[in-house]
């Protein structure tokens, strides 16, 4: 397996992708989608149009029935599950809408979690800040989490704080690609904007590519590019027509 150095043209490239959870019911059919390195992409569309499903395929958890998904120049569709898991662990940071944190771990332990599963991110975090814990502490304070909260159990935080902890976790060890699946949906409007700008600032300093999913189009202005999934997904159009 080739380790992605600087030598990849696209952060994400999708070709002729076809996917359905059950046979006969196609949810995604995308001819081409390319996301360039360090781009910040805003992906939107109504609920149920397949945004999370597409992210699962980029994350290497789901595999398309047909077509190709490449991440950082590596063809996920040609890999076995363990290979895709490796790519996700080493190069992807993922944030969900809510319940991102492991309830029995402290805030710091949650942030350090990716470094348990990826030696690469462990080493990058250590080279950034000396130790993984120091790296976690830096990210947490940059994202506005008070020092006193670090040792708390994650369930004791507010939803907004939990989302920022999840962002710190996605960012630790500077993964090349950050995937955020409606991370702001449970936040109020002010906090949404704060969260997005904090996240994007961090991604900038880490040179990470960002795919940010939301159905709130008012956030689109923060991003380099906005993609309407319905515009590129032929399956959805087909099912609309039917």
């Amino acid at each position: 397996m080739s380790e992605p150095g600087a030598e990849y043209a696209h952060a994400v490239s999708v070709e002729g992708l076809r996917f359905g959870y059950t046979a006969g019911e196609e949810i995604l059919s995308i001819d081409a989608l390319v996301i360039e390195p360090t781009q910040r992409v805003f992906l939107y569309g109504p609920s149920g149009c397949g945004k999370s499903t597409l992210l699962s395929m980029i994350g290497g958890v789901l595999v398309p029935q047909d077509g190709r998904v490449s991440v950082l120049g590596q063809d996920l569709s040609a890999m076995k599950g363990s290979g895709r898991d490796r790519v996700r662990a080493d190069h992807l940071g993922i944030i969900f809408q809510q319940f991102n944190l492991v309830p029995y771990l402290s805030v710091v332990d949650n942030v350090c979690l990716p470094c348990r599963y990826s030696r690469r991110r462990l080493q990058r975090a250590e080279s950034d800040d000396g130790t993984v814990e120091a790296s976690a502490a830096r990210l947490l304070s940059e994202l506005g989490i008070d020092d006193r909260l670090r040792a708390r159990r994650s369930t004791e935080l507010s939803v907004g704080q939990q989302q920022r902890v999840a962002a710190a976790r996605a960012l630790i060890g500077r993964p090349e690609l950050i995937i955020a699946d409606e991370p702001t949906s449970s936040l109020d409007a002010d906090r949404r904007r704060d969260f997005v700008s904090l996240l994007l600032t961090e991604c900038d300093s880490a040179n990470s590519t960002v795919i940010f999913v939301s159905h709130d189009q008012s956030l689109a202005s923060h991003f380099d590019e906005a993609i309407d999934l319905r515009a590129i997904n032929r399956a959805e159009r087909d099912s609309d027509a039917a």
Partner: protein
Amino acid sequence: MLHSIRNTFSLGFKSLWNRRGTAALTLASIAVSAALLSVVDRVRTDAQVSFANTISGTDLIIGARSGDLNLLLYSVFRIGNPTNNISWNSFETIAERREVDWLIPISLGDAHKGFRVLGTNLDYFEHYQYADGRTLDLSDGSTFTRATDAVIGAEVAERLGYEIGQPIVISHGLTATSFVTHDDNPFTVVGVLARTGTPVDRTVHISLAGMDLIHAGPGEFSLPSSLDSYEPDAITAVFVGLKSRVAVFSVQRFLNEYEREPLSAVIPGVALQQLWGLIGVAEYALLGVSAMVVLAGVLGLLATLLVSLNERRREMSVLRSVGARPGHVFSLLLSEAALLAFLGALAGLLAVQLAVILVRPYALAEFGIQLSVGLRVFDFAVLAGILLIAVLVSIIPAWRAYRNSLADGLTVKI
């Protein structure tokens, strides 16, 4: 590899700690099952060793014709009653055989405050052996010189608070509250035996002449001038030591075919084997029940893990999203099962150690069973066995978590 195992166990431990209420209950049920298994086996083997240690060096036990087991039980363990006596003539006939090294005559039947009274002569103190050939020692006083002297076992002395010079009264029958007491024949304690951990500790020893004295009516019996030369009419049993063990079967055959009187001659080891055969059934039944309890404990563990799976689906998805592979999810659940089983079994085994230390004196005094302290091979087998079964059984929830984590993808269901 080691790093990742430590990671998994530390996660597993934190996860269990988060659910410590249910985890503690599961752990307790495993502890109980491990403790039960350990106790049953310990009592079983310790009882066997204690029984086997009761008699040593005796090649044959001879009594009136009866079952081998019955003869062993009443003569050695003082359990039950002899069916018949054997005549002093027979005793002398046996004594004359050239294969015989020594003999101990034994006369049973009476009791003192619930302790068995045994009539014998000085050969008993010289030749009776227990536990790999140890002979009886006096901790105080001397053996008997007069017909009304008594030498008591350590347990008798301790429980009744007797010392040298204590006058005692011996009654017919075994019960402590017997009506027929022989108040006119008081005996005197002249010796106390050192503790042996055998029924000897719970026996009051008197001379054969003393035994006859109890059973004679007032004034019917005149005390002999010398205990050595005293010859009773009948005795209950004889312990025999041979010059060579090779002769055991020929002497046994001679005695079993003895014509003047129906006799039984048993080899103690053989009779003990019969005893194990009999007790063994009950022992294995108990072990079987204990094993079922272990199974119940492990099924409880399985239930706990399965029930927790649904509420942990999101947790598993989160772990997957940060890079955990399905194998990590699988081994996280295995590690939780292994931790519960290991800690539970360990707690159970240690509780047994504590309990053994506490009940040890009581078991020795009451049942003559010397309980051993310290973990044994069987305990480690229990620990390993429970651990293994728990890990095997938890493959089911671990596999389900693994499947779920694949099916759920990164979409965390709410």
